[in-house]
């Protein structure tokens, strides 16, 4: 057996390991030094543009270069809003889930709303990124901040707030006229709807986001507010955004209607019938009497299309308020006609009519 001469002294780490560590640390330093200032380099754009400061709905101060030429949207509702404002041509990137209007599908994708690729966003060289507090992560916004990319965050909790947010977005994106016009028309529609529903008692409803587990909406969400505008009242009083409630809790509340949002199709109708047979569900008066209301998925997006969905729901809950000739229908211009159950009262049995009108205080 041969033995090798070895050094007697031990050593913490190999010398080469130390060199490599130094290299990596040096690279680390470079990264820091490459940034002129503390928060990272600015995305280089055309020579100095004017920048306007806005305070967004999360209380952050955002410096947006004007004019805005390239926008990336990180939420489907913001994509829709941009198109509604006529600024769709400024959109250079959106999320995988931005599907309305159809033009949004053809825009370059940056990933999901929760986990977009920062690299991809940077590669699109946006002047402005739009995000919303209810869907996007704080970390994503922080990352964009550190790279010096202006990010505007919205956070509407009511329908009115959504309308105001839309008007502000027009200013931020530099399409000033469109914002005021759109906001005005939306408010008109709301006013018209309110006058129609004047005096109708608010229906108690359970807004079902998911059936198993049973998830509804919290009282501070814009959805709850939208329900109020549609002449309904959500029976769930939780401060959480998407509270999970038990079926027994729903039974105790015994809402007058169950409201679902989503795709409309024959299959959906059959699903609702099947749902009404399930144990627990069939004890809900609304379920076994077929008092379902189905609205388009626009109901859960804080975008202008929301008003269409509110009107849709109001028709189902208060059909008698719509018997008299309506004011001119105002459907959003680019909304495709949706076949199926939308606008019809529950699929089982004849439409329900209420006897008389109870006076009610709104």
């Amino acid at each position, binding site marked *: *057996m041969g*033995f*090798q001469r*070895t*050094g007697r002294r*031990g*050593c*913490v*780490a*190999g010398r*080469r*390991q130390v060199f*490599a*560590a130094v290299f*990596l*640390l040096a*690279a*680390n330093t*470079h*990264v*820091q*030094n*490459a*940034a002129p200032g*503390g*928060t*990272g*380099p600015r995305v*280089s754009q055309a020579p100095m543009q004017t920048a306007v400061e806005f305070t967004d709905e999360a*209380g952050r101060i955002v410096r947006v270069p004007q004019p805005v030429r390239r926008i990336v949207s990180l939420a489907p509702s913001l994509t829709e809003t941009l198109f509604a404002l006529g600024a769709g041509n400024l959109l250079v990137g959106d999320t*995988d889930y931005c599907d309305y209007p159809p033009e949004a599908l053809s825009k370059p*994708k*940056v*990933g*999901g709303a*929760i*986990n*977009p*690729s*920062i*690299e*991809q966003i*940077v*590669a699109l060289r946006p002047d402005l990124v739009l995000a919303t*507090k*209810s869907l996007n*992560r*704080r*970390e994503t916004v*922080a*990352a964009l*901040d*550190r*790279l010096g990319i202006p990010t505007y965050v919205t956070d509407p909790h009511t329908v009115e707030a959504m309308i105001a947010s839309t008007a502000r977005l027009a200013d931020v994106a530099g399409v000033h006229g469109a914002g005021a016009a759109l906001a005005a028309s939306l408010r008109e529609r709301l006013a018209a709807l309110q006058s129609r529903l004047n005096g109708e008692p608010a229906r108690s409803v359970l807004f079902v986001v998911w059936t198993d587990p049973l998830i509804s909406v*919290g009282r501070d969400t814009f959805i709850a507010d939208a329900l109020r505008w549609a002449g309904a009242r959500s029976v769930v009083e939780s*401060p*959480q*955004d*998407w509270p*999970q409630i038990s079926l027994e809790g729903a039974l105790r509340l015994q809402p007058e209607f169950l409201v679902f949002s989503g795709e409309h199709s024959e299959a959906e109708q059959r699903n609702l019938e099947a749902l009404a047979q399930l144990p627990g569900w069939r004890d809900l008066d609304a379920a076994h009497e077929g008092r379902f209301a189905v609205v388009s998925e626009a109901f859960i997006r804080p975008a202008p299309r929301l008003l269409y969905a509110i009107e849709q729901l109001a028709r189902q809950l208060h059909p008698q308020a719509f018997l008299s000739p309506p004011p001119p229908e105002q459907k959003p211009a680019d909304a495709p006609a949706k076949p199926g159950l939308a606008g019809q009262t529950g699929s089982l049995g004849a439409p329900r009519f209420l006897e008389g009108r109870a006076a009610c205080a709104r």
Partner: protein
Amino acid sequence: MRPLTLKRVLWDCAVLLALLFLVVVVSLKLGAVPVSMYGLGRDLIRVALGRSSELSSEYRLIVFDIRLPRILLGVFVGASLSVAGASFQALLRNPLADPYVLGVSSGSALGAILALVAAPHLHLSSLAGALLTPLFAFLGAMATIAAVYFLARREGQIDSGTLLLAGIISASFLSAVIMFLMTTLPGRDLRGMAFWLMGDLSTPLPASYRWLLAVGFFAAAGAVYTTAADLNLLLAGEREAIHLGVDIVRVRLVVYVAASFLTALAVSVSGAIGYVGLLVPHVMRLLFRSDYRLLLPTAALGGAIAVVIADTLARTVVAPTELPVGAMTAMAGAPLFVYLLRRRLT
């Protein structure tokens, strides 16, 4: 008879280091946005020569400000977790020990949740805001370390059997608290927690914190390395180790504090990335040796390589969507774990 020599340690480390370097360069190239190898090579050379101002702006931002920091973070996190895992396996005399078994990650997660909840109410600058979550996570981890230490203390020293039990109980308790908080607090601030709990490297860190990470790693890993020879003996039996001159009390304390500190550092910035601390030491034992004087450095390098590869995959497999790196390590780790079990964890 081929006893472990310094030369052997250096050589094996050099091989792994070269591999790590290669992995880092390839990872810099890959991503949602294509970067050419030529352009990358050219820019790396410019950086090495100090001519960073000549870098083309596209590469500069994406490669050096997004990818490189993330990769460096992955290097330190992977190295920390692997060293911590190997240390706990020796300390607890249990091949199934990983860095989280003593509850450090749960305490860290709790700190992170508290930071996410508190952040909107404290009006912080962007820099302080970015530091808040890692800081709270780190403090949560240290608090857990102290609590478990005092629970496990008997007659003034750490008792191995009690340590494992104390750690598991703490982890369990803290997880329950976390679950409670996550279901009762308003959800909007906690969306990020799902990513954090899986392990996620996408959150950028201020450079100052990166330095802290590097210094902390070398200090703690160095401390553990001083007990490497003792750990070898500890694995042969606790009483035998005492009779061979190992100062068990000191060794246990040093290893416990240093390994927990490493875990705290890693978890505070990346969440709980699983399987790395458990499996990398075993793989390194298979490829190299069980001797801790070699295992500790090889595990560190192996862990760095593993996490960088996993993170690169997480960024690229379903680009532009990004997966959390913990999902990747779990997907690769579980089958690897089964394979190692069948080889009886030699």
